[in-house]
């Protein structure tokens, strides 16, 4: 029901400081973005799913996220094939026909491998994001962003957005129901354009009430000295402990190994099983 579903549980992952979780997340995501090696994606995928298990995040709570991500994968896969059916062969420097489809569209082993790798690439990042969002106390979230040199005003804005998201979701649902009662149809029975227009009509009251909400909270914050100085301290910031250093070493270890593989074994971003050498 809720995308940002932080709830405290006493697990190793929850006990880690927000800062170390953010750093691990950034390191692993960064390296996954950079390289293109299905073996490493698989290792990170297994790693992140086991961390998810350790954090007692249940797969069924993630149903919506999986549906969104899955839809995105499918659309992405279809579109990248339509627009660049030969990206795989060009990248890997060989062309091995698997089966023809229509016209100039042929499926090659290279293209299939490229696209499957891509799916694994994104799949290995999603659980990392989930872990970070589900196990990090939103207030620590702000202090962690601030610790990696994001200005504190921006950090706070991000964290407040996450905080108020559930309220806004609930309000949207109420407003939308009230509009449906007046006869607004946003069900699948009407055309897409109609649904879009009707959903937009629901947004207007939501935007105004959110603006009111923002007005109240900024006043409250200013009245208590927010933005007075260039820096601020954080009540809930945690000092890094032994566990944090373990987590950081493991993540940076994986990152370093991945970079090593790319530079010294693959000699480039791409792992190329098709190359003759």
């Amino acid at each position, binding site marked *: 029901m809720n995308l940002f579903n932080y709830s405290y549980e006493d697990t190793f992952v929850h006990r880690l400081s927000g800062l170390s979780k953010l750093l691990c997340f950034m390191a692993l995501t960064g390296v996954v973005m950079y390289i293109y090696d299905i073996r490493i994606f698989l290792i990170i995928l297994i790693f992140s799913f086991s961390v998810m298990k350790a954090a007692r995040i249940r797969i069924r709570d993630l149903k919506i996220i999986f549906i969104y991500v899955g839809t995105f994968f499918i659309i992405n896969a279809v579109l990248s094939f339509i627009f660049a059916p030969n990206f795989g062969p060009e990248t890997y420097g060989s062309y091995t026909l698997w089966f023809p489809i229509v016209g100039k569209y042929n499926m090659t082993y290279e293209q299939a491998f490229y696209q499957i790798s891509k799916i694994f690439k994104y799949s290995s990042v999603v659980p990392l994001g989930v872990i970070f969002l589900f196990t990090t106390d939103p*207030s620590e979230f702000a202090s962690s962003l601030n610790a990696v040199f994001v200005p504190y005003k921006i950090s706070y804005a991000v964290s*407040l957005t996450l905080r108020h998201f559930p309220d806004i979701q609930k309000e949207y649902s109420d407003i939308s129901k009230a509009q449906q009662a007046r006869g607004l149809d946003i069900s699948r029975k009407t055309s897409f354009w109609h649904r879009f227009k009707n959903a937009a009509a629901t947004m207007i009251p939501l935007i105004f009430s959110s603006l009111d909400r923002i007005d109240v909270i900024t006043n409250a914050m200013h009245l208590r000295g927010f933005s007075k*100085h260039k*820096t601020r301290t*954080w009540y809930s910031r945690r000092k890094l402990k032994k566990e944090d250093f373990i987590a950081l070493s493991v993540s940076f270890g994986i990152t370093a190994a991945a970079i090593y593989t790319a530079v010294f074994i693959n000699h480039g971003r791409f792992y190329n099983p098709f190359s003759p050498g």
Partner: protein
Amino acid sequence: MGKTPIIEFDNFSFKYFAQSRPTLRNINLRIYPGEKILIVGPSGSGKSTMGNCLNGLIPFSYNGEIEGSLTINGTVAKDAGIFELSKIIGTVMQDSDAQFVGLSVAEDIAFSMENDCVPQENMISRVNDVAGLVGVQKLLRQSPHELSGGQKQRTSLAGILVDDVEILLFDEPLANLDPETGKYAIELIDRIHHEKRIGDDDSDADNKRKTTIIIEHRIEDVLHREVDRIILIDEGRIVADLNAHEMLSSGHLLEHGLREPLYITALKYAGVNITAGMKPGYFSTTDFSDVKNHVLHWYESVPVKTHAESENEVLRISNLDFEYFRGQPVLRNINMSVKEGEMLSIVGTNGAGKSTLAKLICRFENHSPETVYFNGKDVFDQSISERASFVGYVMQNPNQMITQTQIYDEIASGLRLRKVPSNEIEARVDRVLDICGLSRFKKWPISALSYGQKKRVTIASILILDPRVLILDEPTAGQDYRHYTDIMQFLERINSLGVTIIMITHDMHLMLEYTRRSVVVHDGMIVRDTDSSEVLTEPEIISMASLKETSLFHLANEVGIENPKNFVDRFLDYEAGLKNESI
């Protein structure tokens, strides 16, 4: 008092840039250290603007022209800036929910220290001290949003007490609280007013009282505890500056559209001439000894009325259960029956399930078959919009419902979406505009309307579908007496046209004066379904639903009437009679 004032308004005027006329005019007011001041006034009188001038939101967030001067603790307010002022004067705003910034209670209390770059160790000990002072030390790790209304108030108070401010400013502290929590809030404010500062062990406690300013229009509730002076503001000017006894015997409050405490109203009905000598400022100080007979006499002279009830059952709920998550029931075994033309209240604490009940009736949530009946017919298979032709739901805040820019379009929207021919639409809109007293606004944009008028537009946009039942969520929340009376008389008129009205409310005056019947929901169950006057005179139900005894109940006891409910009923009948005469 020979002391120097801590706050001094000297010929102070303020005009918002966006407005043509000044909101505050020639204010002259001195407040001395340690005083407790209540500022009252109808909506738009300028009382909140005065608060914003004090705490620095004017000119920091809202700019305008300032004339004259305002000095706070020796510094000129407009030169000081919001941050310097926030160290002298701490503000608790209404709607504590919206202003929590910390995820945990502790973090929220520490917020101001974080902004002052206080080191973490110092914050932790200071937070513990302050939390102890207001009694939230056991809640430090909880999220502020999970707290009860009273705990929220404590937390927001702690958040400003960490700064050891000289002055506390409460801007409508009761606005979103149920009556019982409001009572505790007033007691807490009073206690903090008397409290010595933390770490200050000097004996001279009297001089160390915190100057306290409360801006509120719920006067009877604030006067649960003593205040030094009441300042009445209307149209930007100070109209009266008196102590509570003088103010309540003066009649100024009614003249300026504010509600007097109910026991004062009852005494007036009984023909008592209220003088300052009776000490009528607080119920507990009022001297009733000379007026007992007056009241008894009046009580006996009011004829007992019987109220006819319609036999047509317009809505029935039977054996309704509901849960959002498995194993966490929100409503359990709800049974109720509503007769045609009734006007009734659903009351109970936040989270008791009142709103969920209303939403189920309108099918905003799904329920099982054979639980909701309209005119005796099971409506399980009707969709939201089908049900809307029978029962209309009006949300609390009109801004949550308005989607069009023109009044006409907003009201017509429900019919247009139902594809009603446009000539028929115009005729129906005209009729509804007439019922709602909005005819002259037919061609106006909605943005030109006041809050109360917008409320009417939203009600009109529901009435256009010709529903038999109207459900309203807190129809008068945040409204002063004048606007409250306006909205309620409007609803009574709709009711007299045959529309059944159900209101979800915290407002005890509304329950008493406008709805004869109240349904009390507690913990997902209906615990009482009876006359409002009975609900408000029964201590057990009162505490369950977080209500408060009406002062009429105490007055009845004071003058020795055995059955307080009868007294309340006659008061209401008498009042209804007066209203009918005036119409």
